[in-house]
């Protein structure tokens, strides 16, 4: 874990350069102090053997370590070494369990009685519901109405694990609204409830703590790639919504200036923003956002000139968010991370390509990273690692529907699925 390594210069005191902080209602401040204290003691200092228990549970319950797989047909297609980090093989089907299990366990160590969480695609909600069931904690999940409708399998899974799923009707019914509602619940019940934030966003210490729980991804890649290829990769590619798999993948490589880091965002249908309508047809915050405060942190945002937060868009519910983690914003500003984006269509092609060529059905989130690989492989060097952050079972309905609308080169004939 990165926590055993020397702390980076840029993440002291809850800020990353100009980003981060704690912009929350006063009622929540004591809870953030309590969490910061617990994070330092249990996560950073392994008090009461917290980290030992976490690692053991991630191994036995979570299925870690996940493989770093050489993708033979992609390697052939692009004429270079392509490795896939298989986070889709973590229990629950995505990297989200790394963080959810860590936080639910921490809440238990803190003596909290109840877990709440927001979810976009449902992967974080599912992971939290699983972790809560595993550790015997009551759990409520807030999910935007639009996302409830487009991610039904995950809604069922959360319910199977005993979590209550509360659909949020406000706004466009996606992740942003779900976070607002979860914050309101937390402000009401803060004394006994822990809010499991699902990405490297929100007030300090969440961005740092979530990154630490997720940094197992990059730590494993670092070890595995040296074992398999005998050296560090030339580039590492991960998709970025809020940025938890991105930071988890990149953190171990930040000091290695010879490794290029690419954060691939959802370009949606266009990178243009219609400010008058308050809608961004993309979720490419790192590429097109401006600095501001949302959900407890100073970071890059999709916002109007007046400061109203835009509705974002992506074919992938998990990337559909107008903000991004403050540490990623900082790493982009300092030039360490290169922001990139691909549109909905490239992501759908990435989905079909990996499914056909490698027998792996990736999440639509991860498909953005694969879309970028197809478009820019020539710039990525001889040895490339792509993080497959999750599996795509949850996205099948969306993919069928969206594929039918388009003439996609990589797609199979959709008609064969009819009847």
């Amino acid at each position, binding site marked *: 874990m990165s926590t055993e390594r020397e702390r980076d210069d840029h993440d002291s005191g809850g800020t990353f350069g100009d980003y981060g902080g*704690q912009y929350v209602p006063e009622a929540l401040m004591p809870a953030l102090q309590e969490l910061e204290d617990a994070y330092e003691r249990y996560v950073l200092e392994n008090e009461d053997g917290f980290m030992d228990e976490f690692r053991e549970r991630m191994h036995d319950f979570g299925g870690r370590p996940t493989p770093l797989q050489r993708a033979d047909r992609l390697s052939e297609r692009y004429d270079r070494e392509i490795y896939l980090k298989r986070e889709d093989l973590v229990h629950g089907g995505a990297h989200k369990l790394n963080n959810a299990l860590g936080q639910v366990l921490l809440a238990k160590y803190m003596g909290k009685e109840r877990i709440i969480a927001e979810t976009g695609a449902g992967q974080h909600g599912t992971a939290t519901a699983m972790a809560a069931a595993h550790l015997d904690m009551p759990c409520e999940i807030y999910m935007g109405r639009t996302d409830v409708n487009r991610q039904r399998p995950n809604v069922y899974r959360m319910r199977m694990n005993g979590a209550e799923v509360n659909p949020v009707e406000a706004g466009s019914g996606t992740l942003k609204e779900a976070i607002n509602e979860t914050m309101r619940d937390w402000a009401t019940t803060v004394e006994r409830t822990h809010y499991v934030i699902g990405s490297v966003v929100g007030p300090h210490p969440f961005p740092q703590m979530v990154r630490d729980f997720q940094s197992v991804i990059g730590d494993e890649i670092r070890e595995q790639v040296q074992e398999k290829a005998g050296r560090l990769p030339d580039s590492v590619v991960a998709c970025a919504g809020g940025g938890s798999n991105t930071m988890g993948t990149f953190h171990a490589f930040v000091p290695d200036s010879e490794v290029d880091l690419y954060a691939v965002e959802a370009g949606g249908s266009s990178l243009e923003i219609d400010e008058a309508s308050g809608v961004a047809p993309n979720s490419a915050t790192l590429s097109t956002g401006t600095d501001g405060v949302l959900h407890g942190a100073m970071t890059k945002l999709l*916002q109007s000139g007046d400061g109203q937060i835009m509705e974002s868009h992506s074919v992938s519910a998990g990337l559909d968010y107008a903000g991004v983690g403050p540490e990623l914003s900082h790493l982009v500003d300092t030039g360490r991370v290169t922001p990139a984006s691909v549109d909905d269509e490239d992501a759908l092609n990435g989905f079909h390509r990996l499914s056909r060529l490698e027998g792996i059905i990736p999440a639509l989130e991860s498909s953005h990273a694969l879309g970028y690989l197809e478009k820019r492989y020539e710039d990525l060097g001889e040895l490339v690692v792509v993080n497959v952050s999750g599996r795509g079972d949850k996205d099948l309905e969306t993919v069928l529907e969206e594929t039918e609308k388009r003439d996609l080169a990589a797609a199979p004939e959709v008609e064969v699925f009819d009847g």
Partner: protein
Amino acid sequence: MTDGSESYDSDVEAAIRENHPALITYITAGDRSLEDTKAYVEALDRGGSDLIELGLPFSEPIAEGPTIQAAINRALEAGTTPQGFFELVDDLETEAPLLVMTYYNMILQYGSEPDVRPFVERAAEAGLAGIIVPDLPAEEADPLRRACDDHGLDLVFIIAPTTEGERLEAIMSQVSGFAYVQARLGTTGARANVSTATHDSLARLSEYDVPKAVGFGVSEGDHAAEIVEAGADGVIVGSALVDIIASSETPDAAVDELEATARELKRGARRGAGEEDAPEPEQP
């Protein structure tokens, strides 16, 4: 800061101390339209408000309950902008000093670069007396407080039921205008009764000689009476007034009801201070 004397540096503190027990009212600017807001604010002023908070709508109001969240959505749909908001304030002439209540991002984004100063300068120019920011805890408030100090505006801090010990001490030493005492955990919204957390909070604050006003859940004269009786210097009412705007058939009907409700709330506050036979607030 208060020094216990009869002269006040702060218009906000003076408004509370001189009109004790004070009525502080809130509505969202641009709810229905900015033109209607002007009439509503004037009605609240006539009804005996001693301070009036005007909400500048932000799209992600995480500290608000459903009533004010809906008002904010109506205001945004009606096209309310910070520019329009300040023009409204330029036009208003009220007895009661006006405060703006908004979220930190709105303050940061006013002007060409993210910076709090252009907003504070414009607020001072428009004649606002203070600023309340529900998502800005004392720890992050230095830049805004410095700007407010430079322009003679109060930056009002919220004291939550969870604010205790050293944090309470630290915040109380920085209070300007008044301490906004949050009556209960959670979000804004009218409630049927006064929370016991209110009594606990007021007891915790009793040793501090700063005006204390209680909000979050206050909706009727009897609440106001109970809160003042428990030691508050003022009561803050928002959602109950926003409900009137939302449910009235015409803006004129809302104007009449807002004025009457403010009067009833002020009477309630006076009852709580033992001024049962207090004269009606003066008619304009």
